[in-house]
């Protein structure tokens, strides 16, 4: 196939893109109809997301983080945040929370314009983020929903101890599962859980292949902006469903094809040109200016070859898979291993490793104003990784969904300076090689 034919095929949206869009949209529809269809609704978080378990009880799954980011991408969060601040919530706190509270205050209309239901249970998966605890206390105050605390201890020493695993397992067995049974009225069937987890493992296998395809030159994917779409299903209401497994199978096929053709990543404006910069990115993206932000990269030929954000809902690229043979232990292991639950030294190791494994030109950190879990310590990560890899790093500052904290000129200026820095360094290396030849 000629590259022209390939271009013609890819200007129209990729099948995987359409599928994931439909899946997410369908979930919103399901949520909006849950009450009338007699389905119970569970709200939970992306890190430590126990989707397979919730499915065992026939819950419809609602992810407030996804709601906030989807609203952000549709540029609706500015108003919602101001609404929450007017109601007394501080300017300094997480903007996901404020968007959610603002949304609730304005009729709980979700990103697709369909109303979101009052949750029947809040599964407070306390994983990797302090704010989660307060978020669900606030939602609980609003709705009076029953709240189940699942405390996932932080890997303070960079290891999962037996004590930590046992604690999570015991909570699951003695508190979470019985409560979900009671609220849903559905008896827990461990084999059903195993089945879902079998599917999860398959999907994880393909996702990891896709993420690691970025080791190639040129990389056929963008592991940050592009990956936002790739991880959608697995980080939310679909992990463990055959639908998701299928999605990842199709996605893998598409990327295999791109690899075969030597293509770079697809962008909203079609094929990217020459791959000029390979970056590792740490930190969540900005959602309110997502497209503009992405464009600042691909218009310069910059592709992200690895990101830590793509691991926020689970770290699968170092071997972990959901294990149907030890389902509860595996769920515990999954939660404990989510990116934001890893300690800083581990994160530094991971980033340095990504730079080497993916042959990146350097590390870019997108520091999010309202996220301390990711943000506190990122300046040290920058210097650590620069020191260990010898590659230059750069630091930009934005926010998740508060449009007041995305300054395009500011970000572009820093990005362009960084790209030019990389050029200058490479340029000199080339000159030296030329002279030596």
């Amino acid at each position, binding site marked *: 196939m000629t590259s022209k034919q390939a271009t013609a095929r890819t200007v129209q949206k990729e099948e995987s893109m359409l599928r994931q869009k439909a899946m997410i949209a369908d979930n919103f529809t399901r949520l909006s109809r849950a009450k009338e269809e007699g389905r119970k609704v569970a709200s939970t978080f992306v890190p430590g997301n126990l989707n397979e378990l919730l499915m065992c009880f026939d819950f419809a799954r609602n992810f407030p983080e996804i709601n906030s980011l989807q609203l952000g991408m549709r540029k609706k969060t500015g108003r919602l945040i101001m609404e929450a601040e007017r109601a007394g919530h501080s300017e300094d706190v997480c903007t996901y929370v404020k968007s959610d509270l603002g949304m609730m205050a304005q009729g709980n209309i979700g990103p697709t314009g369909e109303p979101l239901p009052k949750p029947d249970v809040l599964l407070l998966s306390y994983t990797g983020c*302090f704010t989660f605890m*307060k978020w669900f206390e606030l939602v609980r*105050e609003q709705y009076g929903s029953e709240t189940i605390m699942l*405390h996932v201890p932080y890997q*303070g020493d960079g290891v999962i101890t037996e*004590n930590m695993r046992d*604690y999570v397992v015991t*909570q699951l067995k003695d508190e979470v599962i019985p409560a979900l049974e009671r609220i849903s009225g559905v008896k827990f069937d461990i084999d059903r859980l195993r089945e879902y987890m079998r599917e999860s493992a398959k999907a994880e296998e393909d996702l990891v292949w896709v993420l690691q395809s970025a080791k190639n030159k040129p990389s056929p994917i963008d592991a940050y902006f592009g990956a936002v779409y790739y991880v959608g299903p697995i980080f939310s209401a679909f992990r463990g469903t055959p639908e998701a497994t299928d999605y990842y199978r199709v996605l893998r096929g598409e990327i295999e094809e791109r690899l075969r053709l030597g293509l770079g990543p697809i962008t909203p404006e079609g094929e990217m040109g020459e791959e000029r910069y390979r970056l590792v990115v740490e930190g969540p993206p900005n959602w309110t200016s997502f497209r503009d932000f992405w464009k600042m990269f691909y218009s310069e030929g910059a592709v992200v070859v690895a990101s830590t954000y793509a691991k926020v809902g689970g770290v699968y690229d170092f071997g972990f898979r959901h294990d149907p043979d030890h389902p509860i232990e595996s769920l515990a292991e999954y939660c404990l291993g989510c990116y934001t639950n890893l*300690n800083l030294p581990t994160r530094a190791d991971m980033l340095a490793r990504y730079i080497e494994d993916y042959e990146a030109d350097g590390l870019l950190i997108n520091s999010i104003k309202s996220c301390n879990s990711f943000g506190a310590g990122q*300046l040290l990560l920058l210097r650590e990784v620069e020191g260990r890899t010898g590659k230059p790093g750069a630091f930009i500052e934005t926010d998740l969904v508060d449009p007041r904290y995305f300054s395009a000129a500011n970000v572009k200026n820093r990005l362009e300076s960084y790209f030019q820095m990389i050029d200058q360094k490479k340029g000199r290396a080339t000159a030296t090689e030329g002279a030596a030849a």
Partner: protein
Amino acid sequence: MSTAEIVARCQALFDDLDFTSVRAWKDAEPGRKVIGYLPVYVPREIIHAAGMLPVGILGGGDQLEVIHGDAYYQSYICRIPRSTIELGVTGRLAALDGMLFPSICDVIRNLSGIWKLMFGDKYARYFDVPQNYEDEIGGKFYAHELGEFRRDLERLAGRAITDDDLRRSIEVYNENRRAVADLYDFRADEPWKAASSEVYLVLRAGMVLPVEEHTRLIRDYIEAARTEDRPLRDNCRVVVTGVFCEQPPLGLIKSIEMAGCYIVDDDFMLVTRWLLDDVPTEGDPLDNLARAFLHHSNETAAKYQPDAKRKGAYLVESVRRNRAEGVIFAAPSFCDPALLDRPMLQHALADHNIPYTAFKYAENSGQMQPIREQAGTFADSIKLWSA
């Protein structure tokens, strides 16, 4: 000793950013070790039982210029971690053999990792406490964590920590807790005799002094203050909340008082009042500490409240118990726990018609005039408009 003398001594300890008294304690006998800890709570008994001195680290305050510490934090993060790093890199914490970082928020959590990377030769532990309060679940996890901590300290001390050592330490800390409780009761009963700026310094002294000495100091202060002839003022009685981690400048506490308020309860240095009752000295000491934490401990933003109906109840109860007329919410800028919790606590107060006012500060806030005005207006409004 007069109150003035006691307070002067406490002020000197408070002003000393070089931790001279800690160094002196350490140098007095060979082999002594010091373990630092950040807010909110660590079981100091275990450190004490190891023969070590627990030292509360509360950042650098308003007299410390932060130069190097700023390299580690963006501007939208609170000041305590940067001033703590400043203390570290300028050698002021050289006497510490280890640091504990309790699970209070993500900033302090991540600071434990920064500490490991920067001061890798010192013991640094993220100290997790359970958010599940069942004996067989959270309790089991926590007892195990306490056990690990004990083993770490044994290794550091080069000797075993026996259960009897622990029981003795528990008793010593029970005494300290009783003294603090008495101090707070005294202040709530006769606030004109126990100025909060003084009580604060007395409590801060407990962050660096050996606990036995601190208990004596508190008792001495109560006795001396009781006999002082200090004028009663027509002040309004308030509870101050939100100050459990990054500390306000001493001037801020004074400003609240100057504005016409008696602080009759607060959440300063919760570590001294975290366990509410005497911890039993019979039986397994770690189990006792675990149970005390699960069932007899205080409440704060960093602690999950499993019962929705009880959210904010501790604050309402404090207002009742201490016959307060209002609440002042004082939170450090960017403090996730205090600021996220605030609206819920305010709703609880509103449900009980308890007036409140709120502001933010930083540990190096410079201008107190707005605080005085706000607190003053609040005090006036209570005095003028309350039924």
